[in-house]
């Protein structure tokens, strides 16, 4: 099985990965108008400020959508089929979404709208802690 694709941080994204290494979910935020952005942007899309930095978020959200990879389409994930990929909308802002794999979730019937919380997956390559999400107790949609 080939290695999974490894993130390549840039000056723009390093804050996200450095926080993740400390088991903190941090998202880029405009210092002037408080809008959140993911992925990080060079200029605020709302007020056009260049003063942006990373802030910790609650780590709480809901499942916005999902897909289940039914066959080995992506190198590095051959042994994970069927692979659940969920889109999580954070509580902090409408439309602010991250991608996750739903840690501890069995099956493929993903409950859209269900409440989730951040979890951190030990890095496979000894380098990158990957922010993930899992269903909260009593999280039914």
């Amino acid at each position, binding site marked *: 099985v080939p290695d999974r694709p490894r993130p390549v941080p840039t000056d723009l994204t390093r804050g996200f990965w450095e926080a993740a290494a400390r088991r903190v979910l941090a998202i880029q935020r405009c210092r002037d108008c408080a809008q959140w952005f993911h*992925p990080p942007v060079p200029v605020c899309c709302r007020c056009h400020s260049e003063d942006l930095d990373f802030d910790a978020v609650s780590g709480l959200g809901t499942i916005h*959508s999902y*897909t289940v990879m039914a066959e080995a389409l992506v190198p590095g994930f051959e042994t994970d089929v069927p692979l659940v990929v969920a889109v999580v909308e954070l509580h902090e802002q409408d439309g602010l*979404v991250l991608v*996750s794999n739903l840690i501890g979730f069995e099956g493929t019937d993903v409950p859209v709208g269900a409440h989730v919380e951040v979890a951190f997956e030990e890095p496979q390559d000894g380098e990158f802690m990957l922010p993930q999400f899992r269903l909260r107790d009593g999280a039914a949609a």
Partner: protein
Amino acid sequence: MTLPGGRGAAIVGTGFSDVARHSPSPLGAHVVQACRRAVEDCGLTMDDIDGVATYPNPSRPVGSALDGIDVAGVNYVATTLGLTNLGWACSVTQGTVIAALVEAVHAVLAGAARHVLVWRGMSNPPGRYGRVERATAEGDHQFTYPYGLAHNVMVFALPYARYLWKYGRSRADMAAFVSRNRDRAVDDPQSVFHGRPLSVDEYLRSRMIATPLSLYDCDMPVTGCGAVVVSVAGRARDLRHRPAYVAGQVSLGLPAHQSLVMQYEQLAESGQRLGVRLWHNTGLGPGDVDQANLYDGFSFYVPFWAEWLGFCKEGEGFDYLAAPNSVPVNTNGGALGRGRLHGTPQLIEAVRQLQGRALHQVDGARVTVAQAGDPSHGAAAVVLTNEV
């Protein structure tokens, strides 16, 4: 000058190349074939062509992009066809063939060209389609690839899954449309599914690729090309076939909000904006349309675009497609039936219906619409009429 919608431009010729899952000929040969057929169709010669426009992007996310082999841009076509009278050329970066067509219409209306050749070529070399083999995830991909979200079918499944949840629908609601759509391609030798019907049951049992998208929700990758000729209306009348006059056009389909992945609600907002602008530009409405050609790179875009262009309300696209009195949609099988040709089935059928030359002719068709692309990577639409 009234722009657009002046009936000052018309599509006068159309041509498909031969289409194959895996062709022994390079893409460049298919593009030459389609372009020659389109020019011959209207009775012009290559010496008449003084403009070219295409959407040249590679047809798959990975691999080489050699001009004439993997892609076929304006440089390749100008030199291979020997277009010595060329005076205008354009490559668009979004919105596929109909966005290229819109620029060609603009060029004709502005007097920059008289006869513009427009094409879109798609290449499908051997190998696993769309497979991304990368040890690293760069740019925005660093937030998706490490989770396995690294294949286009998975990426496009996300807004569709959201729609099905939001409106309480399922794949069963799609089955009848996909099966009936296939029927419109099986009797056409230029379709990749020529002679191969698809029952509702076969659709429902087909192999799942990325939930909720199964094999037959995806257009089949092919090597092939579609091409058209756009002419200034004053010249169009003298050519071989009845012109399909351009009543209005729009190239748009871009989201207004930044997001890591496509979100259904953002797509709908962008698609609806395109629809509003389209009817504003044409002075017509969906009720004037006799036959519609909606993008079907994935099956779900057909009900989505039926909603976004105003043929029905949001959330009612499946019901609209199933209704007996709805406008006939994708009467040549679209890309789901003919093969992955990026909007050229839509564009060419919209013209042939107005010329009375369609294989599945809608009697008395006077107004057609052709639309291609999605509201995240760019989309475009054109309304055509055979009445001046």
